[in-house]
C-alpha cells in the first residue's frame, strides 16, 4: 500500500517543463517531507498528484495502492483517497463550511444514502474542538474572510473529516504563528495511522519539529536531488539550500 510517483514529468500549457522526472514512494504509515527552494516544483508536484488540469503530465505515473490514477479526474482521485491541503485555500462565497464539508462527504456515499446529520455534527464539533476552532466557523462561508491561520486550520479540519488514505500538505505551515502551528501539528499528528501516508511540503524545518517525518527529500529544479532521514532537514536548515548547488551533491 503506497502512493507511488514514478519518473513524473509535467509541463505548463505553454510547454515549460516544471517536473523533470520525480520519483517518490510514500507507503501507508509513513510521513515524508519534501523541502526545497521556491520554484523547485514542490507545489506543482502536489497539484499534479491531485490532477490539476493546468499541468500536463508528459511522462511517468502516479499509482495509488497499485492502481494507476493518471486517467482519473480530480474528484475521482479525491474520492479514491487523495487529499490536498492547499497552500492558498480558495474561498467559496455563500457556501457554509458545514454544508461544504457535508457535500464532500455526501459525494463519497452511494446515491440515495444520506449523511446522518446528528452524527455528522458530532464528528465535526469534535475535530473543531481539537483544532481550537470556534463553532461559528460551521456557518461561515468557506474561507471567506478567514485569516491565513484560520484557513490552514480549516484545511486540516476538512482533511480530518474526509479521512483520506494519503494526505498531501502544501506549505501548511506558511503564514502560521507558533501557536497556530502547534494546533495544526496536533491535528496532523492525530491523523497519523499505519493505514495512512502523508506528504508534507515545506520550506522550513520548523514544521518538522512538530510533525516528525520518517523521510526527508530535497527537491530542486523539478527533481528530487537528495533523500535522507529527519537529520537532512536540520542540515538544510543549517547550511541553506545553496549547499545543494555544490557539485559533490548534484
Amino acid at each position, binding site marked *: 500500500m503506497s502512493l507511488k510517483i514514478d519518473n513524473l514529468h509535467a509541463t505548463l500549457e505553454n510547454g515549460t517543463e516544471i517536473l523533470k522526472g520525480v520519483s517518490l514512494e510514500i507507503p501507508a504509515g509513513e510521513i515524508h517531507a519534501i523541502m526545497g527552494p521556491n520554484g523547485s516544483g514542490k507545489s506543482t508536484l502536489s497539484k499534479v498528484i491531485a490532477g490539476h488540469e493546468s499541468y500536463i503530465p508528459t511522462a511517468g505515473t502516479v499509482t495509488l495502492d497499485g492502481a494507476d490514477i493518471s486517467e482519473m479526474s480530480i474528484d475521482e482521485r479525491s474520492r479514491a483517497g487523495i487529499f490536498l491541503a492547499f497552500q492558498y485555500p480558495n474561498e467559496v462565497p*455563500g457556501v457554509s463550511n458545514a454544508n461544504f464539508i457535508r457535500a464532500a462527504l455526501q*459525494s463519497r456515499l452511494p446515491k440515495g444514502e444520506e449523511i446522518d446529520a446528528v452524527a455528522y455534527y458530532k464528528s465535526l464539533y469534535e475535530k473543531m474542538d481539537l483544532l481550537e476552532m470556534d463553532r461559528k466557523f460551521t456557518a461561515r462561508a468557506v474561507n471567506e474572510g478567514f485569516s491565513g491561520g484560520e484557513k490552514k486550520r480549516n484545511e486540516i479540519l476538512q482533511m480530518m473529516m474526509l479521512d483520506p488514505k494519503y494526505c498531501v500538505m502544501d506549505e501548511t505551515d506558511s503564514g502560521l504563528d507558533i501557536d497556530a502551528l502547534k494546533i495544526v501539528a496536533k491535528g496532523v499528528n492525530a491523523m497519523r495511522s499505519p493505514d495512512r501516508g502523508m506528504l508534507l511540503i515545506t520550506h522550513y524545518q520548523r514544521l518538522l519539529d512538530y510533525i516528525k517525518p520518517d523521510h526527508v527529500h530535497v527537491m530542486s529544479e523539478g527533481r528530487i536531488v537528495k533523500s535522507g532521514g529527519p537529520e537532512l532537514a536540520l542540515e538544510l536548515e543549517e547550511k541553506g539550500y545553496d549547499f545543494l548547488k555544490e557539485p559533490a551533491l548534484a
Partner: protein
Amino acid sequence: MLTEDTASAVLDDETKDAINVDRTKGDFTFPERNKFDAGWGLSSKTVDYICDVKQDPDWVREFRHKALAVFESKPMPTNWATEDLNNIHFDKIRYYLSDGEKPKRTWDDVPPEVLETFERLGVPQQERAFLAGVEAQYDSEAAYSNMDEELKKMGVIFVTSAEGLKEHEEIFRPWFGKVIPTGDNKFSALNSAVFSGGSFIYIPKGVKLKQPLQAYFRINSESFGQFERTLIIADEGSEIMYMEGCTAPKFDTSTLHSAVVELVALKGAKIQYITVQNWSGNVFNLVTKRGIAMEDAEVRWIDCNIGSRLTMKYPGVVMKGERARGEVISIALANTGQHQDTGAKMIHAADNTTSNVVSKSISVGEGRSTYRGQVHIPKHLKGCKNNTECDALLINSHSRTDTYPAITVKGNQHATQHEASVSQVSEEMLFYMQQRGLDEGQAMSLAVNGFINDLVREFPMEYSVELKRLIDLEMEGSVG
C-alpha cells in the same frame, strides 16, 4: 472496487431518470379541446371575438379597442432592446383559446387532462400543504379558482380578472390600468387589448393573510399567446403574499406570454409578489409589473427567472406616499439559448421613501443576462434612499452580461448607493471543490447556490427548495 463501480453504474441511471423526469416536468401537452379559438393573428375582429366570448361590458370593449390602436402605433422597442423581438410574428399567434368552462371551485370538477396537468406540476398538493387559495390558468382562462372559506368570510376577494371587472367593478375599475397605463409600452398595450385570465384580489382593511395565495399559469397549446392580467389591491394596513409559477411544453414554434400585473398597496399595507418563472425555451416572456405604495406601505417583488427564450421584465414600485418602501429582489439564470433581460424601476414620489434593488444574474454557456435599472428621485423631495446592488456570475467565457443602471437623483437631500460586480466561477475555485470530491456539476451547483444563497432565503421555504433544485438541474446540464 468492483462493488463500488457496480453501485455507481446503477445509481447513475437513477440519477439520469431523476433528471429526465424533472427536466421534462413541464414538457408535456394534451390535445386541444377548445370550444373558443380566436384564430390566428390580431385585428379588431380578434378583440371583438374575445369581448363576445367573455361577455365584456362596453367599457372594457372600448378599453381593448383603444389599446389595440396604441399597440399598432408603437414600434418594437429594438432601439434599446434585443433584435430578437423581431422574431415574434404576431400573425402566427392565437390570442384566445378556451373550453368555455367557468373556473371550478373543486378539483373534482376540473376536466381530467387539466387536472392531470396541474397534479403533475404539484399545484393541488401545494394548495393542501401551505396555500390559502389557488388559481390555475390553462391557456386563456382559469380552470380552477378557490380560496379558504375563512378568507371569504373576512371579505377577501380572489377571483379571475373577468369576474373582478364584472362583479366587483366598483373596486376594480378605479385602479385598473392606472398603475400601468395602456401606453406604458408596446406589450402593456397588447395585453390591454387581448387580456384574459389572471387574478383580481382585494384584501380588506387590516386583514393580514398568514398563508400565500398562488396563481399557476400553464400554456398547453402551440403557437399561442397568454395574456393574463392581474390586479391586487391591499387596503389600509392589510398584508398579502402572492406567488406565481408557470410552465409550458417545449414547442418548435414560439409562444408569447405577455402579462400585466398591477399592485396597489394603500396606507400601511404590505404586498409581496413572488415569481418563479420556468417557461420552456421557446417562450417570449414580456411582462409589465408595477406596484404603487401609499403612505407607510410596502411593495416587494421577489422575482426569479430561470426559463424562457427571452424575458423582458422590470418590476417597478411607485412610492407615492411618505415613508413608502419598494423592493425588488431578482435572480436570473440564463443558459445557452436564453436571454434574461431583467431589472427594476423605482420611482420615488414622496418624501422619506426607501427603495432597495438586489439583482443577481448567472450566465451559463451562451446565455446572456442584462440588468436594466431605473431609479428616479426628483428634486423637490427630501430624505429618499435607494440602494442598488447588481452582481453577475459568469460560468464560462461565452457568457455575456450587461448592466445598464440609470439613477436619476436630483437635489442633495437623498442617499443613494450603487454597487455592481461581475465574477466568475474560477478554475481554481472549481479545482478546490473538486479536490474535495465534488464532480464538476456538483461543484458548479454549489458555487451558484452560494452566489444566490442570500436571495434564495427571501423566498418561502417551499419555493426555495424548488429553486435550488431547478438550479442544480440547470448546472448539471451545463457541464461536460
